[in-house]
């Protein structure tokens, strides 16, 4: 149960608890919260939707990729769906590693991959409209239909 999609508020401690190891001294978390202003436009609230069964598979895949790249790493990810208000937590990623440098790198890798391959979408609601947010990494096509690791970037 290290990977979860939930409609309920996320408790950071619960996600962190899943990666605590006696052998690991460093845990990093990434906490994605709902921001009020994006490119100067005021968001009222967000709605997240997921293709749940596939999203879980993809989160697990990310965990496996991390374990291969950074041995002795443990990863846990919980993503919330449904309606979220400003400052609500949308996602918590926890990564534990024996050494801290790797923990930051592996955690960063996880959030970038989520934004690439996990079928979760958000709809922004503003005062004057609403819209499903497209690929925030910039518009581009996957020439073979699949996002690859080489697509990873800032």
């Amino acid at each position: 149960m290290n990977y979860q999609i939930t409609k309920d508020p996320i408790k950071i401690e619960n996600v962190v608890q899943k990666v605590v190891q006696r052998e690991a001294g460093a845990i990093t978390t990434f906490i994605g919260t709902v921001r009020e202003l994006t490119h100067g436009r005021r968001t009222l609230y967000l709605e997240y939707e997921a293709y749940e069964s596939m999203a879980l598979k993809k989160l697990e895949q990310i965990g496996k990729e991390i374990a291969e790249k950074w041995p002795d790493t443990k990863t846990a990810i919980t993503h919330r769906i449904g309606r979220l208000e400003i400052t609500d937590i949308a996602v918590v990623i926890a990564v534990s590693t024996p050494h801290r440098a790797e923990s930051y790198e592996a955690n960063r890798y996880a959030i970038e991959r989520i934004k690439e391959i996990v079928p979760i979408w958000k709809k922004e609601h503003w005062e004057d409209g609403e819209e499903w947010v497209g690929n925030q990494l910039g518009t581009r096509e996957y020439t073979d239909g699949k996002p690859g690791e080489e697509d990873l970037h800032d």
Partner: protein
Amino acid sequence: MIKLLLFAQFRDQIGKQEMQFPIEGKTVKELKEILKESYSFDELDSVMVAINEEFVTDQEIIREGDIIALIPPVSGG
């Protein structure tokens, strides 16, 4: 028959979560063309397709019983 799952803007546009199609034997590329013509789905170029919860290429052949999903650009996190 195959089942086509719709999410986000596609679900909003069609007004339902899933559709049924008799398109066994066709490729994903052919499915996309059908969708463009019959349902005026735009932006299909930036859309990924998953069959049975795995991303596939346009060349993939659709089989009886497959569960297909249109995956518009994701925005989780």
